[in-house]
């Protein structure tokens, strides 16, 4: 890879990590001394993606704002990597009127028509709409693609199967991404399926399946590049599974008492790993590391400041937007 592209991946991973750490801070800031999930400036469930940056950065590097992404309950990394407006996204997470959904959606329901980004809190149910976006793209004679994301737990849901079959049958430009972070809340992959790789399942739909084993952003980038190119060329969908890492609990508040692998987790963090690699390769130096970190911090803090400045929605508007007006 070109140094500039490698730097791009690194920059994106840093931005995502910075974002997640900032949200983590803001989320917990006013939930003390006793954690109350509904309290504070950011209430509700919070699923952070730290550790999974390589997947989003590696895949979205191949996309433009014309391409679609449907993400999961853990959507921030993909939203950021796909270029969703950071300020509007943050305002949504804070439940403010300048949020993507004017405060109606929240962190699991980020909809951005500008980048064809969406997500859903229902496991695997983001796959079928991505198939439909791809259908629209194909129908209109474009080379745009739709990327659909789920976790490895979601791959055992019926919607996964149906969506892959339909996209394969209609040769639709979809890239199905599975983030295998070993866990579906407290259930390890070994207790949710006896198949070690969803690449095996791809064969059951007659489409290529790939598995990236080491959470390396460049490996993801390479494999996703193939899948996106194939989709753009009209050759149909592919499946890309990445063995990645959930650095924190399933959601904030999850004590992870069930988690046997917890001790080894910090050592598997993909960000310092990639940073070291780029430093060793001379693509990065310490100054660049600092400035990239500072830039990320500035962007994220600006987004948080924007969110906090934005007004809370007026209760009198609570019934708006149920139906579109003619």
């Amino acid at each position, binding site marked *: 890879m070109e140094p500039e592209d490698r730097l791009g991946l690194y920059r994106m991973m840093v931005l995502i990590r910075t974002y997640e750490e900032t949200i983590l801070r803001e989320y917990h800031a006013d939930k003390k001394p006793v954690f109350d999930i509904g309290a504070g400036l950011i209430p509700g469930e919070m699923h952070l993606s730290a550790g999974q940056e390589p997947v989003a950065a590696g895949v979205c590097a191949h996309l433009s704002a014309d391409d679609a992404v449907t993400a999961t309950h853990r959507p921030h990394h993909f939203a950021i990597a796909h270029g969703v407006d950071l300020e509007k996204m943050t305002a949504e997470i804070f439940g403010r009127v300048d949020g993507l*959904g004017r405060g109606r959606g929240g962190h699991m*329901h980020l*909809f951005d028509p500008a980048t064809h980004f969406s997500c859903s809190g229902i496991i695997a149910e983001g796959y079928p709409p991505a198939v*439909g976006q791809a259908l629209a793209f194909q*129908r209109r004679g474009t080379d745009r693609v739709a990327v659909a994301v789920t976790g490895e737990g979601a791959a055992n849901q019926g919607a996964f199967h149906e969506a892959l079959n339909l996209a394969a049958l209609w040769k639709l430009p979809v890239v199905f991404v599975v983030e295998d972070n070993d866990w579906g809340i407290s259930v390890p992959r070994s207790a949710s399926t006896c198949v070690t790789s969803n690449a095996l399942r791809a064969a059951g739909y007659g489409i290529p399946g790939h598995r990236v084993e080491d959470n390396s952003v460049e490996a993801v980038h390479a494999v996703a590049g193939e899948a996106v190119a194939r989709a753009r060329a009209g050759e149909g969908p592919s499946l890309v599974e990445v063995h990645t890492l959930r650095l924190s609990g399933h959601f904030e508040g999850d004590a992870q008492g069930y988690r046997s692998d917890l001790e080894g987790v910090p050592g598997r963090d993909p960000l310092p790993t990639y940073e070291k690699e780029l430093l060793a390769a001379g693509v990065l130096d310490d100054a660049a590391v600092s400035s990239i970190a500072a830039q990320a911090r500035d962007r994220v803090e600006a987004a948080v400041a924007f969110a906090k400045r934005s007004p809370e929605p007026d209760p009198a508007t609570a019934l708006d937007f149920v139906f*579109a007006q003619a």
Partner: protein
Amino acid sequence: MTLTDASASSSAPVQRKLSTAKAMVEAIAQEMERDEDVFVLGEDVGAYGGIFSSTTGLLERFGPRRVLDTPISETAFIGAAIGAAVEGMRPIVELMFVDFFGVCMDQIYNHMAKIHFESGGNVTVPMVLTAAVGGGYSDGAQHSQCLWGTFAHLPGMKVVAPSNPADAKGLMTAAIRDDNPVVYLFHKGVMGLPWMAKNRRSVGPVPDGDHVVPIGKANIVRPGSDVTVVTLSLSVHHALDVAEELARQGVDCEVVDLRSVVPLDTDTILESVARTGRLLVVDEDYLSFGLSGEVIARVAERDPGLLRAPAARVAVPDVPIPYARPLEYAVLPTPDRIRRAILGLVNA
């Protein structure tokens, strides 16, 4: 364009008669002509033409790019319709029987119906979900339900159910043009199918050209002064038949064809009940926690004093639809049950 409330009151003289199925297809075809983004997908909608003839001839006319047979994967293909709608297309997607909603309800109620709201109005989902409803031909507990109450309970989708050919066309046109998801429930018994006992009104006059019936407007299909019968879909015809018969006995029924379940035309109901003082709801869906209770509640929360007699309901009494004919007809809202209920009201 004919924009009418009462489907028969169009100004141009209407002569041409169509079956409900043909009227529904005509609306789809006209909108497909008008708008390249309208397309149809579902099981057996192509060569078969829809197992209840809801898409007959469309494949021949518009080709397989715009009329897509799907695998038996309702979650995938209804979800695909949602994705296409989000990208600005206007899919009409068929769920073959409404009874199958359970395999794909998440896409319908958590996605199709909520995306607009969750996006703060920034994303629209202009699509029509069609499904066949209703019993009466011994298709058993999994193929005979109406279930409009189930859809209507969940916010974010409009729900319509035409009773006749003209409304079938007009509501379909309105549904396709609506920027919201519309659930369009057609009763097999009003489609005018050659292989099923036909209601005589399943073939009727249908306006040519553009014809829109506004969603959310009920239709007083028979004015009357003694009893208000609020109903929809196939039951409208049973209600009309009974009303004609009872008129000879001096009981004058007003029959309100709701046409839309969501939005529900509460004003028309209230005005009618205010005049008659008696309310019967006839509903082929299950009795409890559904449409019939809602209609009564809308009256009782406005003014229970409007009701000179206790409100009454004829619906499927919270039992799965039985297979055997004598059992099925014991639980369906038959003319006989309707007659007894009306007489009960006027004699109360």
